[in-house]
């Protein structure tokens, strides 16, 4: 496998990503690693064959996935409009606590919209309107009395394109805690170190914390964004195609990371890469043209989906 040496430090031991799996199942991983290759993962999808996906998920099935079935995010009859167009209609979805839920579906089906309506980032979009209910651990997200700032503190978000602030690495990670009122330099340093460690970035940047974050590579920047979100100590992590602009090696590191973070965080990840969904997620939800077609445990979704459309999409027959 052509993955940079540093990759071994995170120990992709858990499941589904042993060298053997990569050889058989993941065409992406065999692409020679060139830094900053755009779209490393997405473009390969149509060639993915279903048997290997099934192999990937069954390998994952006997992993030590948390079996905590508390519902963390409860979406009931959610509709989202952009102006007059309905982007999501009547979505019912329960996201269990401590697990990784993957949102899949063709471009424009509303995955990002759903993600944004969980932490109310849709508020920033002119003309966006939300009806129906989203509850986060019992709190009604769209209640008038809900404090958006407190809500977003509980929900971290990682964007498709890494967007570090044009400041130092330290300042990037310290920003969240700082505006939340953490003042002591010592305390901030601790939070920064802990977050960077959790995001598997500490060793690479510990000697240059005060250099500009924009000097980091694309993959490092994305992990910095994850560290920045973790510094707020959120309960939920929303990730919108976090690896779509990264090369295979960086993608693998991000996946490792997601694997390590599950259990501690409830993670919702949007991905166009079926392999990725199969590898990292416990549950999968398939969207099509603003509708939730099907959702369930990833193993079932990838081995015996109940809807023809799901199967067609997963096996790459359309999308």
């Amino acid at each position, binding site marked *: 496998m052509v993955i940079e040496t540093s990759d071994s430090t995170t120990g992709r031991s858990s499941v589904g990503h042993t060298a053997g799996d990569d050889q058989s199942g993941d065409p992406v991983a065999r692409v020679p690693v060139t830094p900053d290759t755009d779209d490393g993962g997405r473009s390969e999808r149509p060639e993915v064959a279903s048997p290997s996906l099934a192999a990937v998920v069954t390998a994952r099935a006997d992993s030590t996935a948390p079996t905590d079935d508390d519902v963390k995010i409860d979406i009931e009859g959610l509709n989202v409009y952009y102006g007059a167009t309905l982007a999501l209609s009547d979505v019912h979805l329960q996201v269990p606590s401590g697990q990784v839920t993957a949102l899949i579906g063709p471009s424009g089906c509303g995955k990002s919209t759903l993600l944004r309506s969980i932490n109310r980032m849709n508020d*920033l979009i002119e003309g966006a309107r939300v009806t129906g209910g989203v509850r986060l651990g019992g709190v009604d997200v769209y209640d008038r009395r809900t404090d958006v700032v407190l809500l*977003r503190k509980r929900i971290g978000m990682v*964007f498709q394109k890494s967007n570090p602030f*044009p400041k130092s690495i330290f300042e990037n990670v310290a920003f969240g805690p700082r*505006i*939340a009122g953490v003042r002591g330099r010592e305390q901030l340093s601790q939070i920064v170190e802990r977050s960077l460690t959790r995001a598997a970035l500490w060793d690479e940047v510990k000697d240059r914390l005060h250099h500009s*974050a924009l000097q980091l590579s694309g993959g490092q920047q994305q992990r910095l964004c994850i560290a920045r979100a973790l510094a707020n100590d959120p309960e939920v992590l929303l990730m919108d195609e976090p690896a779509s602009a990264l090369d295979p090696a960086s993608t693998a590191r991000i996946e490792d990371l997601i694997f390590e973070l599950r259990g501690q965080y409830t993670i919702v990840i949007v991905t166009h890469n079926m392999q990725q969904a199969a590898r990292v997620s416990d549950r999968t939800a398939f969207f099509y043209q603003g509708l939730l077609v099907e959702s369930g445990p990833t193993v079932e979704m990838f081995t015996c989906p109940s809807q023809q459309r799901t199967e067609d999409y997963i096996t790459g027959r359309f999308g």
Partner: protein
Amino acid sequence: MTAASTQNSAPRQRRWRRRVDQSFEWFCMAATLSSVVILIGMLWAIIHEGAGWLSWSFLTNYTSVHPEKAGILSALVGSLWLIGLTAVFSVVVGVGAAVYLEEYARDIWFKRLVQLNISNLAGVPSIVYGILGLVLFVRGLSSVTGGRSVLSGALTLTLVVLPIVIIASQEALRAVPKTIRQASYALAATRWQTVWHHVLPAAMPGMMTGVILSLSRAFGEAAPLIIVGAWAQVRFVPSGMRDEFTVLPIQIFEWSSRPQAEFRELAAAAILVLLVMLLCTNGLAVFLRYRYGRKVKW
């Protein structure tokens, strides 16, 4: 036969094309050179006339009816006062307005209306602002401004530069990527924190440049200040915002309209001082942009 004619005309066409090409290049070069030549000629004339009058006492004396004793102290200090105050007012109001329009205003219609107004105001001749300043600040608010004072002048000049400052600041704010704002909001920042910690620092170099360039325009303004009542016979330095004042352009205007040749030369010397100061402010703009640009680590 047709073949022969094309063979015949081809070189001629080519020669013609080359000639057109060549003459266009010459024309453009002449256009460039003419502006440079005019500038150099003007500078030379001014230096030739005025340089002899430049001396320390020229900077430290008040104006006088005797050319050899006349200086620009009151005008110089008045100009500095005026620009300092105008800078403060226009930055506070201009940046505030730009932030409101770009970051807060939600109502599309209201925003469009204000925007249209600002663009139009930027094109209003400065003398019109002078009349507004006379009515509003000198007469209307005379209890606050002290009538024909530095404060009235600065407020009037603020009106002159405000539209440009607002537009330049808006452009600088708009150039800050949306993704930065998203990142900040997603980290549970309030709007104020987002603007203060991320948007303003990123937009600062652009705003600074806009502010300083428009201030250097204000530095050379005479028309609105004549109306607001700056007059050239002032023989003291303003010691407060409510004192009377004069400024360099007005001093220059007053001297150059006198019949004696000496006063015209004095005017040229004062122009030299004005030019040096303009050069300094523009240099400051470049410097600040460079410094700030690096600190932001964009």
